[in-house]
C-alpha cells in the first residue's frame, strides 16, 4: 500500500484526505474531478494498492477499442498477434492480483469507447471479455481498481450508467501537499489558492513550478510576463502588496 507523504508544515487538504480514506477503505471505483493540474492522475497512478501495476488511458474523441481491450498487430514473422489493451492488462495485473486502470479525461471519450468502458469497469462478477487469439474468457482479478479523472465540474455531464459504476466522486480542488512541497515556500499558498480560482485567475501547479524555475534566471517580471500573459501586471501588483508586509 503506497502511503501518502505527510509534508511538514503543509496540512493535507480535505479532498486528499478523502481520497486517502476511500482508497484505504478498499473502495475500487472512484472518480476524481475538478480543476486541471492538481495531481488527480498522479494520485490514480500512485495511491492505494498499485503493487500489481497501474495502467493509464488518456481518453480522446478519436480513440478506439484498441486502447482499451487491444488489437491485432503485425508481427516480425509476417503473422498477426494480439496486442493487449491497457484495461485487460489492468484486469490481469501481476497474474495474481488485479491492477489499477486510470482513465483520464473520461468526458472526452466517444460513444463506442464509453460503451466499452461500461463493460470494462463493471464489477468483477459481471465483467468478462473473450480473448480473440485463444478464445479464453478473461475476468478481472481480485484487487482490480479503476480511477477515473475529469476536469468536468458537474458529474451530471457523465453518462448515468458509467457514473453508477463509480459510487465515490471526489472533487479535487487543491494540489497535493507533495506537489506543493516541490515549490518554494513563498509560492505554496498562492498555488494552493489559485488551483480552484475562477477562470482567468486559475493556475495549475505546473505553472507555479515553471514560474519558480524561470524567475531565478529571468527575474520575476519577465517570468510573470512569459507565463501569465495579460494578467502578469496584476500578479506583480499582488506580489508587491504581499512583499510589503512579508
Amino acid at each position, binding site marked *: 500500500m503506497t502511503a501518502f507523504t505527510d509534508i511538514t508544515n503543509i496540512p493535507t487538504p480535505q479532498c486528499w484526505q478523502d481520497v486517502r480514506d476511500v482508497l484505504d477503505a478498499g473502495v475500487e471505483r472512484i472518480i476524481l474531478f475538478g480543476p486541471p493540474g492538481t495531481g488527480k492522475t498522479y494520485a490514480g497512478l500512485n495511491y492505494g494498492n498499485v503493487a500489481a501495476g497501474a495502467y493509464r488511458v488518456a481518453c480522446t474523441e478519436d480513440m478506439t477499442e484498441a486502447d482499451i481491450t487491444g488489437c491485432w498487430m503485425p508481427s516480425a514473422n509476417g503473422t498477426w498477434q494480439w496486442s493487449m489493451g491497457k484495461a485487460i492488462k489492468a484486469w490481469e495485473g501481476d497474474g495474481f492480483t488485479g491492477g489499477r486502470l486510470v482513465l483520464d479525461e473520461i468526458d472526452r471519450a466517444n460513444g463506442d469507447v464509453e460503451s466499452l468502458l461500461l463493460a470494462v469497469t463493471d464489477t468483477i462478477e459481471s465483467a468478462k471479455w473473450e480473448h480473440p487469439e485463444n478464445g479464453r474468457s478473461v475476468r478481472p482479478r481480485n484487487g482490480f481498481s479503476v480511477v477515473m479523472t475529469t476536469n468536468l465540474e458537474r458529474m451530471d455531464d457523465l453518462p448515468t450508467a458509467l457514473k453508477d459504476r463509480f459510487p465515490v466522486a471526489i472533487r479535487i480542488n487543491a494540489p497535493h501537499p507533495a506537489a506543493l512541497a516541490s515549490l518554494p515556500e513563498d509560492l505554496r499558498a498562492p498555488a494552493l489558492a489559485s488551483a480552484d480560482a475562477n477562470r482567468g*485567475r486559475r493556475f495549475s501547479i505546473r505553472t507555479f513550478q515553471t514560474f519558480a524555475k524561470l524567475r531565478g534566471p529571468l527575474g520575476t517580471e519577465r517570468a510573470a510576463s512569459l507565463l501569465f500573459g495579460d494578467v502578469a501586471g*496584476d500578479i506583480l501588483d499582488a506580489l508587491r502588496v504581499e512583499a510589503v508586509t512579508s
Partner: protein
Amino acid sequence: MTAGIAMPEWLTRLDRTNGAWDVQAGSSQRGDAWTNSRDRIMRVPVGGDETNRSIRAHEMTHAKISPETNNLGTELGISHGSIIAAEEFRVNTLIKVAGFDPDALIDGSEKLAGERLAQMKDYAGMVHAVGATAGTRACRHFLTGVRRADSEMGKKLREVEKAILSEWSKPARRYGEKALARRWGNTAPTGAPDGSSESGYTVGYINGNLPVARKLDAAIEMLSTPQSADEDDSEPTEITSDQLKKVLTGKDGKFAPLRLEELPLTKTVRGTLGKTRTATNVGRNPRRINRMLTDPQRRVFDRTRRNAGGIVLIDQSGSMALSSEDVEKMMEASPGCTIIGYSNGSRSLSNVWVMAKDGRRCEHIPSGNGGNGVDGPAVEYAASLARRGEPIVWVCDGMVTSEDDELFENLDQQCARLVRRHKIHMVRDVEGGVAALDEVRKGRTLPTKYVGKVRMGAYAVGIL
C-alpha cells in the same frame, strides 16, 4: 487601455489560510470597491489606469491584512466609524510603501463632501473622512471643501490629519518604513489588547489600527464637546486648533512625584513566601550530577531554602474599588512580602505607603480610592526594594494615569517598559494576586505579564 484584475489568491496571511476568491467587476466610484474577507468576495474596478490599479491594490491590502469583521475593537470602547477609518489609513499607508499611488484614490466628490459635512457640523463624519484619507490628495480636497464652509474647522481637521500621520511617521523615522510596514501588516494572531477572550486580533491591527482609531475618537470628543474657556464662569467655547493639536499630539502626561509614607509596622507576620533550590555538596539524592565534572566543590545535591518573600504592589485607586478586606486578603496571602499601596490624591501628604516589610505589617490599612497618578514611580520604588530573584506582583487594572488622573499613551508605554525591565507579574484583581502568590509559594517562577492599557503600551513600544 489594458483591463486589470485583482489577484487576492496570491496573498498570504498568518492567521488563516487563503483560498479561491470571487472577484467581481466594479467601478472606481467611492463605495463601489469593497472586500469581504470572510466569504472571500472582492469588488474592484477592472480598468487599467493608475486610479483603478491603486484601488485594486487597496482592496488586495485589505484582503492581506484586515480582520474578517470590521468592528473588532468596539468592545474596547472605540467607535465603529473610527475603527473603519483607521483601517483605511493603515491600508493606504501600506500601499504607498508598496509603491502604489494613494493620491490616485480620488473620485472628485471629496470637496463637496467636505463642504456638506462642515455645514452640517457632522464632527464624526469629518474626522472619519480625514482619518480614512489622511496623507492623500483626497484629504487635501476634502479639507478644501471644509474650509469653504468653515475655515476654522478646516484648520482643526488639518491638526487631526497631522496627528494621524504622526502615528506612522514618528515610528517610521525610528524603525524605517519597511520595518514598520512589516509590523503594521503583521497578520500573526494575538490576544485581545485588554486580555479578554475576543478573537481575531493580529499584531498589525493592534499596532496600526487601534492607536489611530483611539486618536480619531479623541478628536471627535474634543471637537463636539464645548470647552470651558478659563477658570471663570464664562460661556463654554469650541476647542481651538492649538488646543486640539496639544491634546492629539501631546506626549506630556507625567506621573506625580513619589511621596512615601512609612506607616508604623507594629504587627509581626509569621511565615515566608516561596522557596529556592540551591546546589550543595551534602545530601541524599544527587540531582545535579553534571556538577561532578564541572564544579570544583562537587555540589551535586540540592538544598531547599525558604525565600524571604517578594514585593506586592497594590493599586488602591478608585477604579480598583478595593475594600480594606480585599487588601487584608492580599496581605494574608503574602506573608513575609513587602507590601506597598498607592493612590494619588487620596491622602494629603503621601501617595505611596508601605504596609508590610521585613516580617512586620501595619495595624490599619490606609484607604486609597483616589486617582492612580503615581503608578510609574510606585513601580520603580517597589522594584528598588526587590532583592535579586524576588518576584514582584503588581495588582492593577492597567489604567495608569497622570498626576491629573488623565490617560496618556506615553505613561502606558513607560509602565510597560518598567514591567519588562523588572519582570513584573501584573494581575487585574485580588483573586489574581492571591493565585499568583500561591504559585510563588509552590516555588514557581511568575512570568512577566501585562494588563489593560499597559499591555497596549507594550504593543506600542514593540515589547509584545
